[in-house]
């Protein structure tokens, strides 16, 4: 009987706090994503030719460890019996990845980066709870940030510059400002 009460209390706590934390986290993710949407993530290994002469690259990364709550783990356990989508874990991984990307972007923006290239994700279940149930996951995102050292291009570091060079401007025609 006592066991059952403990179990139900844990389930209730997990449900209440878990939902609250998740909703709060999603709100903060959406807000920061809107703030940082100007920083381009380019999933190629090529630096736009406009920047050839004046740029600097460095590695940036962002990581987060997020834990699943008791209620979700219970629901996922039930799901394992019948199969199908495990929605509680889907949101967990989604939150972890988006948070990692945001932290990477924040780090890049603090150094004045114009874009981040070649982003790689890495996931790892870092802490396994009792009986080897997955307790939490780590998400890591990393990429190469690049900063233009040219004063002129630094003012408008978005699509325009890239399209201009595609339509014929050679890198050598962009004279360095310094």
């Amino acid at each position: 009987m006592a066991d059952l009460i403990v179990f139900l209390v844990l389930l209730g706590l997990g449900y209440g706090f878990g939902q609250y934390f998740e909703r709060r986290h999603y709100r903060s993710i959406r807000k920061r994503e809107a703030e940082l949407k100007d920083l381009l993530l380019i999933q190629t290994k090529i630096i736009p030719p406009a920047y050839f002469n004046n740029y600097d690259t460095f590695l940036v990364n962002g990581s987060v460890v997020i834990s699943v709550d008791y209620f979700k783990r219970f629901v996922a356990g039930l799901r394992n019996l019948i199969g199908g989508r495990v929605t509680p874990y889907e949101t967990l991984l989604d939150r972890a990845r988006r948070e990692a990307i945001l932290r990477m972007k924040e780090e890049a923006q603090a150094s004045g980066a114009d874009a981040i290239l070649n982003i790689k994700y890495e996931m790892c279940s870092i802490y396994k709870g009792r009986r080897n149930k997955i307790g939490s996951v780590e998400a890591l995102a990393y990429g190469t940030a690049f900063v233009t050292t040219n004063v002129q291009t630094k003012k408008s570091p978005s699509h325009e510059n890239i399209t201009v060079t595609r339509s014929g401007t050679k890198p050598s025609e962009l004279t360095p400002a310094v």
Partner: protein
Amino acid sequence: MIISNLELIPGKRINKHLGLVQGSTVRSKHVGRDLMASLKNIFGGELKGYTELLQDAREEATARMIEQATSIGANAVLNVRFSTSSITAGAAELFAYGSAVIME
């Protein structure tokens, strides 16, 4: 020292390849942190202690990789990759590797 996860940096020529360099470290947190983590496992949410632990460890692994690259005379490490594996509850191995090159 240029650290990048691009395979080539345009506009800069690679003069010599020096092969793979790597750095790794295994870290764990003290029991207090583990206790906090198991509590958090009930409520859900971010485990700040572990995030910090992994971030520190990753920096350490990168530093070791750079140290190795410097010792063989490289001035850049390209195509850097990170990898994480959990060994037991509360301990993790962080591994960073890349190819060391001499750039002009």
